[in-house]
């Protein structure tokens, strides 16, 4: 019998040392490709101005400074529309869109996953179809509809459509199917709980990992949304849009721009770090049947 390789105390089957080495090498190379631009972005934000315009440029700062961040802060306080307004817009849009998506999405997901009503199959099929095309296809007709509602240039133009985003609902439905046992729901119903109550009190607490996943999906879309084509007023524009303006602001603002990029990316990354294990748990149920 051939000798079994072990890793730690576990026996590993079918693993050659050469393969391990090769895989590690590929991982390191790919990791560098993914990670170095992030490092570069952070490095740029810590460079004093003279290092940003130095030839030959350095990859990392030699005399790191937080000056760019304080520049960004000054720039923010001096801008025409107060910067707190951009931040408020982003937080408001992100929070209300995400909350609406979570509530409406999970309620519909519960019904689609756990209640056997005629029509649920084709409803779900249409939702899966909607995952198959990118929403920008719709932007022109979307605009016509929004202007028919007189929603152009309001928060509603962004928030309400975001509430009906389908990826979160899809993940929620799949997760409910796999992790909420029918027997639990049945016994709740026998105890006299209404369907809404069963959903809210029994099912929802069981799918907390999926909440987080839905929240980060919705959050990432709304937070990273730049200039929406449906909003013209400067007062309603988002933080991300303002940041892009600073980044595009030319040489004088390079330092502040680099700092702004880091601020912008830090938030979703922190949210993801906190919720990672729950998200992976939800994704276990994400599979699509053929």
């Amino acid at each position, binding site marked *: 019998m051939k000798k079994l390789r072990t890793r730690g105390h576990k026996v590993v089957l*079918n*693993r050659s040392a050469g*393969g391990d080495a090769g895989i590690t090498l590929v991982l390191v190379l790919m*990791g560098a490709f*993914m990670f170095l631009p*992030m490092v570069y*972005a952070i490095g*740029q934000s810590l460079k004093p101005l003279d290092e*940003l315009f130095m*030839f030959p440029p350095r*990859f990392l700062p030699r005399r790191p400074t937080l000056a760019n961040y304080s520049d960004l802060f000054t720039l923010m306080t001096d801008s025409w529309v107060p910067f707190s307004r951009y931040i408020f817009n982003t937080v408001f849009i992100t929070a209300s869109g995400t909350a609406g998506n979570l509530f*409406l999405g999970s*309620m*519909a997901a*519960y019904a*689609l996953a756990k*209640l*056997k009503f*005629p029509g649920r199959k084709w*409803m779900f099929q249409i939702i*899966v*179809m909607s995952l*198959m*095309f*990118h*929403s*920008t*296809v*719709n*932007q*022109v007709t979307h605009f*016509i*509809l929004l202007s028919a509602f007189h929603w152009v240039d309001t928060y509603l133009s962004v928030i*309400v459509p975001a509430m*009906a985003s*389908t990826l979160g609902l899809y993940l929620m439905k799949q997760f409910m199917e796999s992790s909420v046992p029918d027997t639990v729901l049945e016994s709740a119903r026998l105890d006299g709980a209404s*369907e*809404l109550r069963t*959903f809210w009190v029994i099912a929802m607490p069981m799918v907390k990992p999926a909440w987080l996943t839905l929240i980060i*999906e919705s959050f990432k879309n709304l*937070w990273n949304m*730049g200039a929406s084509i449906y909003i013209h007023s400067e007062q309603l524009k988002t933080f*991300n849009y303002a*940041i*892009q303006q600073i*980044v595009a602001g030319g040489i004088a603002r390079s330092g502040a721009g*680099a700092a702004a*990029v880091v601020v*912008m990316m830090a938030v*979703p*990354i922190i949210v*993801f770090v906190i919720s*990672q294990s729950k998200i*992976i748990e939800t*994704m*276990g149920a*994400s*599979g*699509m049947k*053929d």
Partner: protein
Amino acid sequence: MSQGNESFGARLVFCLKGIGTKCKSGAISLIGKAKSLVKRKKTGDSQSGNNASSPVSRTEMTRRQWIWNEMKKNKVAYFMVAPFMLLFFIFTVLPVILSMVLSLTDFNMLQFPHFVGFDNFSRLLLNDEIFLIAAKNTLIFAAITGPVSYIMALLIAWFINELPPKLRAVVTLIFYAPSISGSVYMVWQTFFSSDYYGWANAFLIEFDFISEPILFFKDADWVMPLCIVVALWTSLGTAFLSFIAGLQTVDRSLYEAAAVDGIKNRWQELWFITLPTMRPQLMFGAVLSITQSFGFGAIVTALCGMPSVNYAAHTIMHHLDDYGGQRYEVGYASAIAVILFIIMITCNMVIKKALSKVGQ
């Protein structure tokens, strides 16, 4: 038929469960219901192919009545899906339908639309050279970013699967971070900046590969490859997480059994055990990757401006934005949208078919 029987069986079990717990009268009515269902099933079997909605003497209710009953019983379910489905219909389904209708008109937001048949489509395909460039670019872009990001996501997820959990979490973050951090891809513009302060140019000049800085994002030869690289950099998103999770759910004992059965190396293990087991995740990931690969327009616009130099990175998305968002030729833009829509759905269908053969 077998599927129908299965779901019927499940329903029966469910009814029987009810008998155990409910009071007697309830149980009797349930048994009655189960019997009527059996009857329905049998008649359905014996005359499958006939018009199911026509009244059949041997069943107490027609299919239509039965559905109506079920609908009434599940009122609350409709109430629960209604808010979401309503918004979904208005903001996703209706725009698609509206695009299809408007694509047959000359609507321009000002005058009342006239029906023009397939004029928009023939103009698009026969007389619009820029559209053809855009279509070519879109297909190249999608054909590279789609498969590459898909395979990259799968391989990386597979490679890191055997790392210890803490390390795996860190590595996951490193690979996933670019896709969630919004406009951080703008840093590529600094890196490939067109002056001497851009790191790439400085590096090439210092080692004498070039003497003049390359205007990376203004050079028709460079924009497409660079945009593809940046797109790939941001592409390890939800599909990647789905693969990581899918790999975690594969039953360890399958691998042991496979080793006994003569699987010799990890590649065979991947092909014969892992991939078939996680086929649902592969499907899901494919759908997301394809959709994503057609949606990188925003990155191109942010990096190269719009229109990009000589339309070198002009995609159908940009063409759509040009006619819809700037020239207000809505009818024409709708035709563009419909074509893009058809391309995306077709791609998805074809890939789904192909994926169902994995590991067979």
